[in-house]
Structures are given as structure tokens and as C-alpha cells.
């Protein structure tokens, strides 16, 4: 873990709500090893109302360019201000934080399910799988076509399935209604997105005896294990989502009780 200033190399507006921001260490320090599922804590400058840092998943690591990608949805003042940092601007990060998704040791059928901006860590995860010789499948959901972000990036690493609530892309409905879930039998499911979606995915996985890991977005104050604010109730009691998570095997969670 370290605290470091980054320079915003680019800040791309993907749609009215989402930005893709690529950052590199301001002093050209070489990025440390990072794992899919890990996140960063962003200091929000120039905001009278944002006191704490904001946790954002590592969307992708471009080792060649020494860049971290962040996919950010504007939902409040913190994310608004982050998305307003122009190219060339500075962003102070604490990183890398948290555990990571379990990377497969063997071949198999892996499904990566993301909803909304919860697709963010799935890109990095998919890339790491591909590099290990695995062809992941992605199942991404959103309200409409414009909410399914980074499609061409995902397609580089695996097959892409989509659902949209208005049917403007892929199948109409929620991710858990997608036909692949009926047609195929997966060995492992990874998921990140709105809690109701993740609970539905966890339930599907549980009912079908599929291993499943979910990445949580609990409210965080510090992000590195010091405040005990981010706890998730698990079978082992209250556990910090920032150090022992954000990725949990659903067997550890009490969602389905």
C-alpha cells in the first residue's frame, strides 16, 4: 500500500453518467503488482462536502503505459469532482487496496457477471484470465444499450453476453434472466454490481452448486483496515470489506440466510 500522486492521462466521457479515467504515477514511478478486484482510495480535492476518500475499483492495468484505468459513475459530489479532473490534472491515491478475485488454477467455464458500473473490475479480471489461457465469458447488464460500457474492451478477452432493461442491447431483462444461465453450466461465477443483482446471482450460483465470488461496495472510511467501518456480516462474524474483501466467496456471506 502506498499514497501517491497520479497524473490524469485521459478523461473520457462514456455517457452522461460515466467516465473512464486513465492515470499514471506523477513521478513516473513504476506501478506495483495489482490484482483484479483490488481498488484505490481517491482523495477528492476542492469539494466542500467530501471529507473522506472515495473507493474505486481498478478497472484495468496497462503495464506498458504504466497506467491504471478507473471507470467512474457520477452519483454524488465526490464522483462528480473526480470526473471533473481534466487531462493533466492530479489525483492522489492510496493503493492497491483489498484482496482480489481468486484467479483460476485450471481450465473451466468461468462467467463474469457485472451490473452497471460494477462491470469495472471484470475487465481487469477477464484480462488476467485470458493471459492464463482461459476464455472467460462476460455477462453484463444495464438499463439500456448506452449503459453497457467498454464493450470492445471486453470482447478482446472473451465472449460477451448482455442484458438491458429496455431491450436495446442483448436480451431484455436482468442479468439473472439471461438465457446463457439456462443453457450453460458454469464452474465459477464472479460478480460485481448493485447488491440486489449480486444477491440474485449468488442465489442462482448457490442453487446450481456453482462456486461464486462477489465484490462488495460497502461504505468505507479508511480503506485499509484501520476504522472497522466497512464490515460485512459473514459466517465468521463482522469482517472488514476493505482488507479481507472486497471480494468474498458467497459461502462466507449471510445474504442467502
Amino acid at each position, binding site marked *: *500500500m*502506498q*499514497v501517491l500522486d497520479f497524473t490524469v492521462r485521459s478523461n473520457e466521457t462514456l455517457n452522461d453518467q460515466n467516465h473512464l479515467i486513465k492515470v499514471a504515477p506523477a513521478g513516473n514511478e513504476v506501478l506495483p503488482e495489482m490484482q483484479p478486484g483490488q481498488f484505490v482510495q481517491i*482523495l477528492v480535492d476542492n469539494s*466542500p*462536502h*467530501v*471529507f*473522506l*476518500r472515495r473507493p474505486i475499483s481498478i478497472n484495468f492495468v496497462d503495464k506498458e503505459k504504466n497506467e491504471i484505468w478507473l471507470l467512474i459513475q457520477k452519483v454524488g459530489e465526490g464522483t462528480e469532482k473526480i470526473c471533473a479532473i481534466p487531462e493533466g490534472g492530479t489525483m492522489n491515491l*492510496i493503493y492497491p487496496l483489498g484482496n482480489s478475485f481468486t484467479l483460476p488454477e485450471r481450465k473451466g467455464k468461468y462467467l463474469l457477471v457485472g451490473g452497471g458500473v460494477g462491470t469495472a473490475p471484470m475487465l481487469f479480471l477477464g484480462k488476467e484470465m485470458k493471459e492464463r489461457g482461459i476464455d472467460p465469458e462476460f455477462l453484463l447488464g444495464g438499463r439500456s444499450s448506452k449503459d453497457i460500457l467498454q464493450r470492445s474492451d471486453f470482447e478482446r478477452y472473451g465472449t460477451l453476453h448482455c442484458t438491458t432493461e429496455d431491450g436495446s442491447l442483448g436480451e431484455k431483462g436482468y442479468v439473472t434472466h439471461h438465457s446463457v444461465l439456462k443453457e450453460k453450466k458454469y464452474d465459477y461465477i464472479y460478480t460485481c454490481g448493485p447488491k440486489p443483482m449480486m444477491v440474485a446471482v449468488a442465489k442462482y450460483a448457490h442453487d446450481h452448486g456453482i462456486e461464486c465470488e462477489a465484490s462488495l461496495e*460497502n*461504505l*468505507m*472510511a*479508511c*480503506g*485499509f*483496515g*484501520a*476504522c*472497522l*467501518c*466497512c*464490515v*460485512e*456480516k459473514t459466517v465468521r*462474524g*463482522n469482517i472488514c470489506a476493505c482488507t479481507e474483501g472486497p471480494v468474498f466467496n458467497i459461502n462466507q456471506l449471510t445474504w442467502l440466510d
Partner: protein
Amino acid sequence: MAGLEVHIGDLKLKNPVMTASGTFGYGTEYADFIDLGRLGGIFVKGTTLAPRQGNDYPRMAETPSGMLNAVGLQNKGVDYFVEHLYPVIKDYDTHMIVNVSGSTVEDYVACAEKLADLDKMPAIELNISCPNVKEGGMAFGTSCQSAAQVTREVRKVFPKTLIVKLSPNVTDVTEIARGVEDEGADAVSLVNTFLGMAIDVESRRPKLSTITGGLSGPCIKPIAIRMVWEVFHAVKIPIIGMGGICNWQDAIEFILAGATAVQIGTYNFIDPAASVKIIDGIHDYLERHQIASVNDLVGKMIVQ
């Protein structure tokens, strides 16, 4: 070289900057960010006799220039601390001080007793001001009588430096400070968090699972400084001041108001290296103002 050493009871601190209980884990969480040996001291997480799961999620809400927490003293209990944590942290080149919490006087006493045996545990901080537990906690700190009682009983079993942490949720903090001084406390630390609350207006639900929680951060600084100043004029024992300290200016403000040392709390979450920057800042301030020792500043606000 300006002198930074200060004394709190029998404790010699290499500098007046320490980190506040519940915001600094067991120090280890910050080892990646700073050299822990630079700190005057580390107050570890609130520790109770029995293990505690703490309160349900959500435990945190951001507020203007601050935050509410409702952690509720989640910890693995004093025995676990003694067996598993103490061995790891005891050799840090700084003072490690346990923040002792409880629901009954007996709890406090039993917990303090176990810690008294530890060689490298030179002091404890009695937390009679936690607003986040149903029983005990803050209740001890808001009545002069019970604050005095718990101090008296713990004093009997704990011969080393005894610091009592005061609650700001009181009409007259000097009364409580005098009460614990009379019972033999070596120092008081203040303030703990203010009891506060926040509601999500769209869902109409409280933002914390416990409805109310403890307010910390810069928002409380003006009230905390006032209380330190009041207590400075009420007791003779040293004061450890805290509440919203973010930079060396804030720390000096507490020292001028009467604090011999300070604790950095919530701001560690935002800048994990804040404490070390504050040490440097105090040092530079002393040099710039040609003040030989930080002790010369304690309570030295100029009135008139």
C-alpha cells in the same frame, strides 16, 4: 534543535504527537505508510474484557467536515490482545497504549489488571466516553460520580500511567476532569466523539444501524479546543488533546489551549502520513518562533 519531548505521567514521549484509539488499528495498518517509530505514541483500538462483534453495518456516515461512526468497540478481547497482538507490537520503537473499554466497573478493572502485567505496556487509556455501546461506555463519562468510581477502582490495580479519556457530551467537562484527577488519574485525554445522527432523506432511514453514533473530524475542533482550555484551567495533570486535528496548525492550537500532547484521529484515514507531517510541522514552528521546547507552548495562548 527545538525540544519535542513531553511527559505524561511516567511516560516520556519523544514528541507530543500520538494517534487516537480506533483510528489507527494496532499500528500495523499504517506500517506501509510511515515509520511508526517516529510517533510519540500509538493508542490502540478500544479493548474489552470479552471479545465484541461491534454493531451492524452501516457503521459510518460522512457529515460536513467530519464523520459519524458506530463501530461499537469491535475487538477480540483482552486475552487475544495479550496473546496475539501484544507480542507483535511490543517492540515498536514507540509507546503502545491500550484503550480500555467496558460495560461495568468490574470489566474495566479486570481488563486493566491483565494489561498491568505486560512489560512493554507503560500506560492505559480508560475509555469512559464511547457513545457507541448500549451499556456503560459513555454513561461512565457523563456522570462525575461514575467517572470517579471507575477511575478509583482501576487505579487500585494499575500502577503505571493511567490516562482517562473524557466525553464531550457533558454540561461541564471540568467537573469530570477534576473528579478523575482526584481519584489519581495521571492524565486526561479529550475529546472522544460527540453523539450525533444523520438520516437519509430519500429512504427516511437513519444512516447508521444504531441510529446515533460518534461525530469526529474537523467539525468538532472548535468545541474540543474550548474543552481542553477549560480543563487546563481546572486540573493540574497533563492533558492529551484531540478532535479534528488535520495539520500542525491544528496541533499547535490544541497545545496553546493547554494540551501537553495531541492525538490524531479521523484524519489518519484521509492522509495516513498526517501524524508524521504534523511532527515535522510542530518542529518547524518551534524553530521559526525560536521556542526552545514544545513544553513552553502548553496553555500559552496570549490573553490580552
